């Protein structure tokens, strides 16, 4: 009995010491996982996930503090990619964080804008230009559609407009073969 205890204790001490040494010797700084998660997130910086931006959310996911289904702009596809990366199960988008909307951009109604600069301060990607008492406008190409500029506007002159399909961004549709009734009967 004593021998058994001694052997196990010896084993524990030796292995513990070895692991302890290794933990110090092979310490790793930084977390490459955050980078990878951040790369998947859509970078709208909208805060709908309840974190102040995409990177904080990525950090929270990496730490296991946040679920992977809190990003409405990323949609189901983004969740699927995160699930793949992290080896977690796919979950549908959590309703409390919002719903997936078509990609849109903010548009300022120039008739109403009073030039208060509040939206400029709210925009996380500096996509609104303008100055105090000057008309503001949105750089559509840079706008991520985060909607953060909507609440601060005192005159409600900002609206979200879905990006329209054009010849440039038109996509070929998934091929669907229509079975016409005549052929169906013949077959």
């Amino acid at each position: 009995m004593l021998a058994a205890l001694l052997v196990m204790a010896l084993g524990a001490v030796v292995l513990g010491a070895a692991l302890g040494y290794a933990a110090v010797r092979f310490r790793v700084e930084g977390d490459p996982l955050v980078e990878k998660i951040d790369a998947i997130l859509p970078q709208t910086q909208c805060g709908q996930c309840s974190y102040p931006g995409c990177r904080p959310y990525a950090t929270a996911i990496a730490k296991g503090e946040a679920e992977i289904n809190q990003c409405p702009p990323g949609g189901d596809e983004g969740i699927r990619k995160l699930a793949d990366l992290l080896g977690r199960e796919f979950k549908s988008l959590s309703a409390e964080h919002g719903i997936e909307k078509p990609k849109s951009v903010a548009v300022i109604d120039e008739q109403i804008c009073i030039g208060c600069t509040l939206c400029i301060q709210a925009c996380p990607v500096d996509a609104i230009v303008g100055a105090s008492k000057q008309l503001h406008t949105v750089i559509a190409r840079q706008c991520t559609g985060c909607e953060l500029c909507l609440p601060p506007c005192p005159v409600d002159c900002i609206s979200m407009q879905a990006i329209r399909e054009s010849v440039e961004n038109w996509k070929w549709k998934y091929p669907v073969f229509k079975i016409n009734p005549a052929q169906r009967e013949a077959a």
Partner: protein
Amino acid sequence: MTALQRLFKFNGGVKPAYNKEASTRLPIAVAPTPTLLVIPLHQSIGGMPRPLVKPGERVLKGQRIGGADGNVSSAVHASTSGTVIAVEMRLMPHTSGLSAMCVVIEPDGRDEWIPHGPFDFRNASPTQIHDYLRDSGVVGLGGAVFPSYLKLNPEKQRNLDTLVLNGAECEPYITCDDVLMRERAATILQGALVMRDMLGAGQVLIGIEDNKPEAIAAMEAAAHAVKTAVGESSVKVVSVPTLYPAGGAKQLIRVLTGIEVPHGKRSTDYGVQCFNVGTAYAIFEAIALGQPLISRIVTVAGNVGQPRNFEVLLGTPMRDLIALCGPLPDSDRVIMGGPMMGLRMPDDSVPVVKAANCVLVGSSDLFPPPPPEMPCIRCGECAKACPADLQPFELYWFARAKIFGKAQEYDLFDCIECGCCAYVCPSHIPLVDYYRFAKSEIWARELAKVSSDEARERYEFRMLREEREKQDHAAKLAAKAVARREKAAAAKTDAAKVATTPEQDEKKALIAAALERVRAQKEQIQPENTINLTPEQVAEVAAIETRRAEIREMAKPHVWQDD
């Protein structure tokens, strides 16, 4: 000149019925100017040109109406003189059925040219040539509409030894290059020599499929004429076996030179550059005559009474062209391009653009609907037919399951969408549709990735800027506080130091005088209880006052004296 040229083969390929004879019986006709020209601004690969004209403006034939925007973009010109009616969204010759910016011109029938003249490219700098060709709007007329000035940049393309002229025209029904070579061989050759000189290439190989003997003969005659006239012997006309898609750039280069351009490389890396014969013709017109690209040869074929080739002003509605050939009553569709690679048009009102080599009229008899798609049986016929040496069935599986990463690993983007795989597929799978779907999905994703990276960068910069501003602000406040404290301290020492200066004395005197005045005023005010008194009371008060005065006198005589 001909023929003792060793030829090579590319893998795969198919032999569909050419259906070319009908449209080559008649010579090229000039299509009449339509009542309204709709000229899309976006007619080449790359950026959308910006409009240079306004509604109501009068334009001349050959006047630039769209300026190249960005590094890859090509100008657009008015095809005839007239008045700009509108610059607006019009239906595009595009499968999507969507609209884009077009300049609508009402011709005035005078067909008045803008002043133009030849361009002396031999004495021009590369930048001048680049800008001139960009503003002439010359693009690849084989169907890809890649701006030609980017391919004719001699600085980028050093050590070029072969210029390949593509007259193969392998797609069924299309004969626009064929008739162009038959009728205007000498001009094409002139254009080819101009391009050769620009590129500094050693030889010119003109590849023509052997089902066009008249075109071969015409080009040979032209080459012979050039040889006898100026001793030019670098041009070779080569007849290549008829096999679809011998007219693909990589395939033709392979057949003519034996060079197989690998994945991720360009033919220029191997000293070969390839142009369509129609492009050579357009280059000649642009350089030697100074005429920008405003018209092209278009084959009208298919379900029409008399198929024919026309020289068409860009912007002419396809409907007008079709009407010239007598469409058969059961026609129900218009295809731009051939039956293999062509795109179905949303409507027959769409205009002819630079990419339109053929307007193919179809009916359900001529092109019956494909039989139902059956499951892939992995027979591998598509792999045997693929001229790009891909594995179409793998691409199909991945595209179908939307595993785009894998599809890219299998080199989806090397697919030229020639349609050979779908042509041979025993299960009638519309393979090319799957590839187009996968390609556009991947492009969309890449664009989204680029814009999200940009957003991240901007967000991080904003964070950095806010942090910096906060620090700057804090630093400013701290500096101000320090300054204030220093100032206060300095003021104290100053006061101590300069107490006896005359100014200070003056101030002190002023203050003292003011104080004196206040005291005097106070003394003049009489207490209320001394008003309305009886004479006895007055006398009593006076007696008390005199006593007080005496006592005061006695108490502090020295104070009064001192003061």
